[in-house]
């Protein structure tokens, strides 16, 4: 039984211009203590997936179908049908969340201490003094310099990296089983990015927290994740253990993404994927990648949605040509087709 098991999740936005399915039949599983990277370009539905897990999809958005099963000591809750009151106990209690924008995600009128303490007191029945002690402990855990003083400071007095540490401290304050990190390093400088990623990896090892890392940066995934799922236009197109995916990408989109990644090893020009990511309301029929795919040959590609097939143990691909694509099984990584 995985810790979190998402099955056929469909989240759509009902706008005046019609129904926009931002997440269209996504299935994912995260094991305890592991890190799953959810990769995709902006607008592919990865953040909506994260908000669906917490039941926080904003107003015109609705979870239309699917299950989000959270395992808790043998009991399994479906977060889609869970009443709001119980869902609130999950949020921050069993699932912590780290957002992309450390600059705006902290409330400007409360001190750091107030905000971490609140996270503790919402889920634990502790005295203010104990909650404050816990907040201090968390700031030490995320290696915040001068934590006693920081407790009484306001977010605007902190740098972006320090604020992200506060966000992490807040997300981990109640020792959740799972932390969802939505682009946790995108808004930060490169050097700070590395520090934050290292901190996250270190905390995972120490606390045994599972992490769902949402990112568009394959470099981040390569460094931190055990498993990877690639999302395109609301659907998972490929899923595999990280080593397998980087070594043997099978979906044309994944292959394109990897080829477009600048690495020190490769010589020659960077390749790009032709065309643009479609907006959710203009998703093409059939395989959603077919307008940009350099392999789409069968008429089927424009009419039928390919199934997500397991082509090797733990390696799922949504493309009928998967076997023919990508490097052969024993191969050198990184050679573009």
């Amino acid at each position, binding site marked *: 039984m995985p810790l979190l098991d998402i099955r056929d999740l469909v989240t759509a936005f009902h*706008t*005046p*211009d019609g129904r926009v399915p931002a997440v269209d039949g996504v299935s994912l599983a995260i094991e305890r203590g592991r890190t799953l990277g959810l990769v995709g370009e902006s*607008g592919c539905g990865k953040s909506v997936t994260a908000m669906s897990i917490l039941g926080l999809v*904003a107003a*015109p958005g609705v979870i239309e179908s699917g299950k989000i099963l959270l395992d808790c000591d043998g009991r399994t809750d479906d977060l889609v049908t869970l009443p709001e009151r119980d869902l609130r106990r999950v949020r921050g209690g069993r699932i912590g969340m780290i957002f992309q924008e450390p600059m705006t995600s902290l409330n400007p009128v409360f001190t750091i201490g107030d905000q971490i303490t609140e996270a503790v007191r919402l889920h634990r029945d502790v005295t203010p003094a104990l909650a404050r002690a816990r907040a201090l402990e968390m700031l030490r855990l995320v290696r915040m310099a001068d934590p006693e003083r920081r407790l009484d400071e306001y977010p605007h007095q902190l740098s972006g990296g320090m604020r992200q540490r506060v966000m992490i401290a807040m997300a981990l304050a109640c020792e959740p089983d799972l932390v969802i990190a939505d682009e946790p390093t995108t808004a930060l400088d490169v050097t700070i990015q590395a520090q934050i990623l290292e901190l996250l990896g270190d905390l995972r090892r120490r606390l045994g927290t599972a992490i769902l890392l949402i990112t568009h940066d394959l470099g981040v995934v390569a460094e931190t994740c055990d498993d990877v799922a690639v999302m395109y236009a609301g659907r998972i197109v490929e899923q595999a253990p990280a080593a397998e995916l980087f070594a043997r990408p099978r979906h044309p989109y994944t292959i394109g993404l990897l080829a477009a990644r600048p690495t020190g090893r490769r010589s020659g020009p960077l390749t790009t994927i032709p*065309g*643009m990511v*479609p*907006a*959710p309301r*203009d998703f*093409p029929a059939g395989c959603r990648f077919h*307008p940009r795919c350099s392999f789409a040959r069968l008429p089927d590609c424009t009419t039928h949605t390919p199934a997500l097939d397991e082509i090797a143990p733990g390696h799922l691909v949504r493309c009928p040509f998967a076997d023919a694509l990508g490097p052969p099984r024993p191969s050198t990584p990184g050679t573009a087709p």
Partner: protein
Amino acid sequence: MTTETRTTGFWGDAWRRYRRRPLAVAAAAFVGGLVLVAILSPAIAGTKPVLCRYKGRIYAPCLAYFARDLEPAIFARDRFRGTYPRNLVEKDPESWAVWPLVFQDPYRSVRADEWPGLPANPARDEGRPSRRNLFGTDQAGVDVFAKMVHGTTIALLVGFVSMGIAGTIGVAVGAVGGYFGGWIDMLTSRITEIVMCIPTLVLILAVIAVIEKPTIWHTMAIIGATGWTGIARLTRGEFLRLKESEFVLAARAAGAGPARIMLRHILPNALAPVLVPITFGIASAVLLESSLSFLGFGPPPPTASWGSILNDARSNLAMWWLVVFPGIAIFLTVLAYNLIGEALQESTDPRLREARK
């Protein structure tokens, strides 16, 4: 490629969202209706023929309601003294005339038998609404309906003229300050703050008292000259934001001068947010004019303004019709402009547009 995007353009998009608000559409229709009433006012209520044939020629004496000089001189020569129905028949049996819908005058009481069979208007407490006087008559027996129909022009003009002035000043001051920055911005911002500090009503009352013969145009000019501060601040903010944008840098790189950049490149992009305070400004200008008229500082008689009808009511509160009809007219007009302003705000707000994603 199948990845074409449907682009309807900014204003098309805004209009689509505006149309989805039935109240705002109704409000726009109401203002449109007022414009029609204002244009057609002499044909709706009056005592002068819309069109008439007199001594072989065709005249439109009703135009006199727009400007006194437009009354054909022949009627003055023939001693009509403003009384057309009887005179036309007596002085030229061949004549014919098309009359306004309601035979009532906004400036004077209708005398008995002026229109064959029509009794004189009642006055004071007697003048409650009836079939002849739809909205009743005032102290002097003047028909309130006719006064209100002819007062529509003022209610509309006040809004448009004063906000036209305020908009021009505000956009100019804000644009110059925001675009050039530095000491120019410092100067324009300080001037804006000073004008903001002057209590508007105080200034307007003082200025109107200075003018020897204040007309409605003076009132409009003063409302416009004091009501631009909000618009200036908003424009300044927009210009500050937009002058750093890529398309302005591109225009500057292409050698465009400041005037051209401000007018052709920045202003069209800043227009939508600036339009919102202008619409709300129209509402408050209408309100301000009617309160001035109500306080007795309105256009001099006999010019009819909705607010001055209310002023008449103060001397005899038993004449409730002098309060109810103009009061509701002012209220509906202000409400309509507020609704339009709010709908404009929400249909052009970029933040709300992004929420569609």
